[in-house]
């Protein structure tokens, strides 16, 4: 578990730097460091699926963030309105802690087997899953509706962004849609 703790400390440090850095580019690169640390943590915890996913998504978001921040010094001010900022932070922390309490109190007590439903998945997935990878057969068979919902969310996001982009180009000839 030492590796996990080192990685966690690294990620926390990088996240603090990302929040506190004055330069936007430094913050973006620190966010990328957090993502890479998370990817290695998934790999250490023996979840290569999540590690690949995290690494790839991290690269895309880093490219988009650098693309968005590289050109201009976007003015960013955290000063002023400190009363509103502090009360908002305390409010969201309270909401987070309350919901975490509600969720975590239903965890099984220490010592009881935590593999309830997942035992059935592991035993039966290979038999009638059709895929030799348990993760793939869970995503594609047992939780297909979940995957369908995920696709719906992503497709809606794409359609929304494309619609916004088209609206911005309406005035020009040779518009975006061609």
């Amino acid at each position: 578990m030492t590796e996990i703790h080192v990685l966690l400390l690294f990620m926390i440090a990088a996240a603090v730097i990302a929040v506190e850095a004055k330069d936007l580019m430094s913050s973006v690169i620190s966010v990328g460091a957090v993502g890479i640390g998370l990817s290695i943590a998934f790999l250490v915890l023996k979840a290569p699926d999540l590690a690949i996913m995290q690494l790839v998504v991290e690269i895309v978001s880093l490219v988009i963030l650098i693309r968005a921040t590289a050109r201009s010094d976007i003015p960013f001010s955290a000063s002023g309105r400190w009363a509103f900022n502090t009360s908002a932070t305390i409010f969201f922390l309270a909401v987070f802690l309350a919901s975490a309490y509600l969720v975590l109190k239903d965890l099984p007590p220490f010592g009881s087997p935590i593999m309830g439903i997942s035992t059935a998945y592991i035993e039966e997935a290979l038999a009638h899953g059709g895929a030799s990878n348990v993760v793939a057969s869970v995503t594609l068979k047992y939780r297909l509706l979940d995957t369908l919902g995920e696709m719906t969310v992503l497709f809606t996001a794409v359609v929304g962004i494309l619609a916004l982009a088209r609206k911005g180009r309406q005035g020009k000839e040779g518009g975006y849609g061609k």
Partner: protein
Amino acid sequence: MGNNETRGMTVIVKTITRLTLGFILLYGIYITLNGHVSPGGGFAGGVIIALAFMHIMLAFGKEEALKRLRVSRLRILAGAGALIFLILAVRPCGFIDYSVALPLCEMAVVGFGIFAIFTALVLISKTGKYKED
């Protein structure tokens, strides 16, 4: 910086992109099609394919990238992927290999969708406040 978007980057970057592009696309397709055997799947493969096209766009400039893959075709591919995924999910039919067909649809939605978002961001910033051409 502003010229990079129309002309692309230096000849070194262009040459390396030409060499590595095929391998990146091949890796994306491999991740997609082998998701039911090894770690991976449609989402990761789609993002890798989107990264390959972003690579073209960053190295060669947006004209060259849009010549190869038009935005209207991106929308058609992503929409077709979503539609086929929906049909396969709510109305199962026996003779299709789901562990190949579903990741392919997911790859189409994710890959072309993310590249379409990136393209939209590039084109938006052309009309924004920081117009440089």
